[in-house]
C-alpha cells in the first residue's frame, strides 16, 4: 500500500508511504519547529541528522517522543505536535542548547538573521534553567570565512554542504561528546585546508558560527579618504537579491535603487560587473572559437572541452583536486578581476590618476571573491586590481548604517564607461547563464550570421547537471552545465577518463549559481527564493535593448582604444591568468 492515513493534531491527512511526520504535518499547514533540519526542494539537498531534537512530537502509543524530521509516518499514526509533553520537551531541549551558547546576541554578526535566536523567540524561552560549562574554541580567520565555534550548535548543515553537495571534504565532526566540533582535519585552520571558500557552509549556518570576513570598515575608511577615487562594481546576482534585506519580495529587481544607494554611500563612480562579464565573453568566447577551429582542423594538442573560469571557488577546487587538468579551463579571468584590471589601467589613465589612488570595491553574492581579489597574481607591485569585495549582505549593512531608506530611493543609472552592459552580462548570475551568453556571441562570430533568437531555453533550469546540443550552422556543439562542486566533480572525472562528449562546460560552485551564492541574503532553507532570483535575472535580460556581449558599444570602444583584439598581447596580459597546482 503506497498511501497511508495519519492524523496530525486531530486533522486527518493522507500521504505517500515514506513521508516523514514533518512533511505530513507541513502538507496540512502545520509547521513543526526545526533547527538542524534543512531541505532545499528541487536542489536535492537535505540535512536531517535528527540531532537537535527540537522537532519532537508525541505519537499515540509510542513510549518516547519522535523526532518529526527523521521519523516516517505510518498508517493509523496519531500525532500531536503541540501536546504539553511535546512543548515542554522542545523547550527543555532549547534551554539546554542555549545553556552552551554565548549570550552575546546584541553584538553578534548574525543577530536578526539567526535561526537559533528566532527559535528561542518562537518557543517563548524567557529563562534558562540550566547552567553549566560552556564550550570554548579558538577563532579561525581565513581570507573569506570566520569560524567562531563557540556559537556552533552541531546541526551539521555545513558538514553536509561541504561533503555531500560540494564534495570538498574540509569539514567533519571531530572529537567526542562535549568537545565535539566541526573542523578541518587535524583541526588546522581553513586557510591551510583545501577549502574553496564557496561559502555554502556560511549560507546554511543557522547561527553566527560561520560568517564572512567583514570588510565594510575598510570600505568606509576608503570612502572618507579625500586623496582616493573610490569606484564600485556590482555583480549581476546582487540586484536580484539585495531587496530581500529590505523586506522586499524575493525576486524583486532593485538595479536602479542599488545604483542610487551606492552613489549615496559616496562612491565616485558606480559601475557594473556585467561590463566585466561582457568582456569575459569576448575573451572566453574567442578562446572557445580558437580551440574549436583548431579541433576542426585536426590539431591533436587542443584541449577540449573548455571550462568556464568565472567562479573563484571552482578555480580553487580544481587547483586542489584536479591539478592534472589545470590546462583545460579557459585562461580568462573572472568578470570581477577583468573589471579591476581594466579599471586600474584603462580607466585610471582616463582619469589621469595613479592606480594606487584608485580604490576598486566590488559587491558580490560571494565570499570566495574576497579570497580571489587577494590572490597575488591579481596585483601590480603589491597593489590589488580589486581592493575589497563586499557580500550582498555587507552592502545591506552598510546601507542601513548610512541611514539610507533603500525602498524610497529613486532608480538611477550606472556611470560610463564601465557601467554599460548587455543582457548577456546580466544572466552570468545564474546557472546556465555564462554559457548562454558565450553561445550568443560565439555563434555569431563562428557562423557570421545573426542569431534567429537569443534565448537558449535548453540551457536553462535548476537541474544540477544539464546538457544541450546547439547547432552552429551545421556544426553540433555539445554543452554541459554543472552547479554545485559535487556535480562539477562528476564532469571532471568524465573528462579525465576520456569519456566526455562536451565541447564547452559551464561550472558554478554554488547551487543555482551566483544567485545562490554564499554572500547572498540568507535563504533559510527556502529554495523558492533562489528560483525567484533566477527568474528576475532572465527578466532583466529580456528588458535590455542589447543582449549580446559583442554588441556592447563600450566594449567595442575599449578594444578600439586600448586592447586591440580579443586575445591580443595586451588582453592576455590584463585579462588572462594561470592556474596553480595546489595539491603538491
Amino acid at each position, binding site marked *: 500500500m503506497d498511501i497511508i492515513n495519519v492524523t496530525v493534531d486531530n486533522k486527518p491527512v493522507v500521504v505517500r508511504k515514506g513521508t516523514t511526520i514533518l512533511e505530513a504535518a507541513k502538507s496540512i499547514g502545520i509547521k513543526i519547529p526545526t533547527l538542524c533540519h534543512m531541505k532545499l526542494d528541487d536542489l536535492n539537498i537535505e540535512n536531517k541528522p535528527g540531532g537537535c531534537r527540537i522537532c519532537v512530537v508525541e505519537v499515540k502509543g509510542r513510549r518516547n517522543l519522535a523526532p518529526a524530521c527523521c521519523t516516517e509516518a505510518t498508517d493509523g499514526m496519531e500525532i500531536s505536535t503541540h501536546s504539553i509533553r511535546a512543548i515542554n520537551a522542545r523547550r527543555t531541549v532549547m534551554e539546554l542548547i542555549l545553556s552552551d551558547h554565548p549570550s552575546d546576541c546584541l553584538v553578534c554578526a548574525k543577530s536578526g538573521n539567526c535561526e537559533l535566536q528566532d527559535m528561542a523567540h518562537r518557543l517563548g524561552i524567557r529563562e534558562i534553567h540550566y547552567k553549566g560549562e560552556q564550550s570554548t574554541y579558538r577563532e579561525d580567520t581565513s581570507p573569506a570565512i570566520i569560524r567562531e565555534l563557540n556559537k556552533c550548535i552541531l546541526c551539521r548543515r555545513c558538514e553536509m554542504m561541504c561533503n555531500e553537495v560540494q564534495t570538498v571534504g*574540509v569539514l567533519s565532526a571531530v572529537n567526542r561528546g562535549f568537545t565535539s566540533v566541526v573542523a578541518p*582535519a587535524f583541526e588546522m585552520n581553513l586557510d591551510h585546508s583545501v577549502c574553496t571558500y564557496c561559502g555554502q557552509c556560511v549560507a546554511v549556518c543557522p547561527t553566527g558560527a560561520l560568517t564572512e570576513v567583514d570588510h565594510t570598515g575598510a570600505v568606509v575608511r576608503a570612502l572618507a579618504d579625500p586623496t582616493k577615487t573610490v569606484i564600485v562594481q556590482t555583480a549581476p546576482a546582487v540586484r536580484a537579491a539585495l531587496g530581500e534585506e529590505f523586506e522586499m519580495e524575493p525576486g524583486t529587481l532593485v538595479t536602479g535603487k542599488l545604483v542610487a544607494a551606492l552613489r549615496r554611500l559616496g562612491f565616485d563612480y558606480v559601475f557594473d560587473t556585467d561590463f566585466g562579464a561582457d568582456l569575459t565573453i569576448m575573451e572566453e568566447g574567442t578562446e572557445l572559437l580558437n580551440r574549436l577551429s583548431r579541433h576542426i582542423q585536426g590539431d591533436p594538442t587542443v584541449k577540449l572541452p573548455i571550462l568556464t573560469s568565472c567562479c573563484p571557488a571552482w578555480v580553487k577546487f580544481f587547483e586542489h583536486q584536479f591539478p592534472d587538468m589545470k590546462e583545460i579551463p579557459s585562461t580568462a579571468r573572472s568578470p570581477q578581476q577583468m573589471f579591476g584590471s581594466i579599471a586600474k589601467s584603462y580607466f585610471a589613465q582616463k582619469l589621469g590618476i595613479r592606480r594606487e589612488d584608485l580604490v576598486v570595491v566590488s559587491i558580490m553574492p560571494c565570499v570566495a571573491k574576497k579570497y580571489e581579489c587577494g590572490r597575488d597574481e591579481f596585483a601590480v607591485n603589491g597593489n590589488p586590481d580589486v581592493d575589497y569585495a563586499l557580500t550582498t549582505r555587507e552592502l545591506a549593512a552598510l546601507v542601513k548604517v548610512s541611514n539610507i531608506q533603500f525602498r524610497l530611493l529613486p532608480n538611477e543609472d550606472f556611470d560610463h564607461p564601465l557601467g554599460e552592459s548587455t543582457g548577456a552580462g546580466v544572466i552570468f548570475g545564474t546557472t546556465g547563464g555564462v554559457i548562454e551568453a558565450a553561445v550568443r556571441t560565439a555563434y555569431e562570430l563562428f557562423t557570421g550570421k545573426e542569431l534567429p533568437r537569443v534565448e537558449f531555453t535548453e540551457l536553462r533550469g535548476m537541474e544540477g547537471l544539464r546538457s544541450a546540443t546547439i547547432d552552429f550552422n551545421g556544426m553540433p556543439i555539445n554543452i554541459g552545465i554543472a552547479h554545485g562542486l559535487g556535480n562539477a566533480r562528476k564532469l571532471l572525472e568524465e573528462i579525465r577518463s576520456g569519456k566526455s562528449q562536451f565541447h564547452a562546460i559551464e561550472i558554478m560552485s554554488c547551487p543555482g549559481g551566483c544567485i545562490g551564492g554564499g554572500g547572498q541574503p540568507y535563504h533559510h532553507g527556502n529554495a523558492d527564493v533562489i528560483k525567484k532570483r533566477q527568474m528576475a535575472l532572465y527578466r532583466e535580460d529580456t528588458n535590455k535593448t542589447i543582449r549580446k556581449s559583442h554588441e556592447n558599444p563600450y566594449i567595442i570602444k575599449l578594444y578600439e582604444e586600448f586592447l586591440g583584439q580579443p586575445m591580443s598581447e595586451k588582453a592576455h596580459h590584463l585579462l588572462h591568468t594561470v592556474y596553480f597546482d595546489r595539491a603538491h
Partner: protein
Amino acid sequence: MPKIKLSEPAVETIKEVCKSFGNKEGELINVLHQVQNKLGYLPAEVQELVALELNMSVAKVYGVVTFYSYFTMLPKGEYPISICMGTACYVRGAEQVLSEFRRQLKVDVGQTTPDGKFSLSCLRCVGACGLAPVIMVGEKVYGRVSPQQVKQIIAEYQEGCPTHSVKTA
C-alpha cells in the same frame, strides 16, 4: 604538529592493510585498528595516506580517530599504562590511582614521558570489575590497585625487571 616522513615499509604496510579491506570507505575503523596495531599510533601522515587509499576526506578519517579513545595520534610509551575508568573501578578509587600516576610520571592522560618509557591513558572496563580498581601495563593486569602501590609498579619497569618486561605490539 611536527611533520614526519613515513618510511617506505610503513607506506607499504598501510597500503597493504587498506587493500586487504578492499580499499572500502566503510572499512575505515577496521583499517585504522590494524594500522595502529602494526605502527603503534596514527600520526597525521598515516591518516592522510589512509584517506587517499580509501578515497575519502582526511577530515572524516580524523573525525573517526578523534572519536574513539582507542585510537591515538601520539606514539605510546614502551610500557603503556591504562587506568580503567569504568563504573566499578571509578567508585573504588580509580581516579586517585590515576592522579598518583600523573604525579609520579609528570605526564597527563594521553601523553608519553620524555624518555619514551611510559604513556598514560584511560579506558572503559576491561571486564575484571571484581578486581576493581584495575590498571594495565601493556598486557599485564593489576587488580585492587591503591595509590600507595603506584610507585612500586612504576619501579618494576624502570629497573627493566625481566619478569615483567612487556612490550607493545
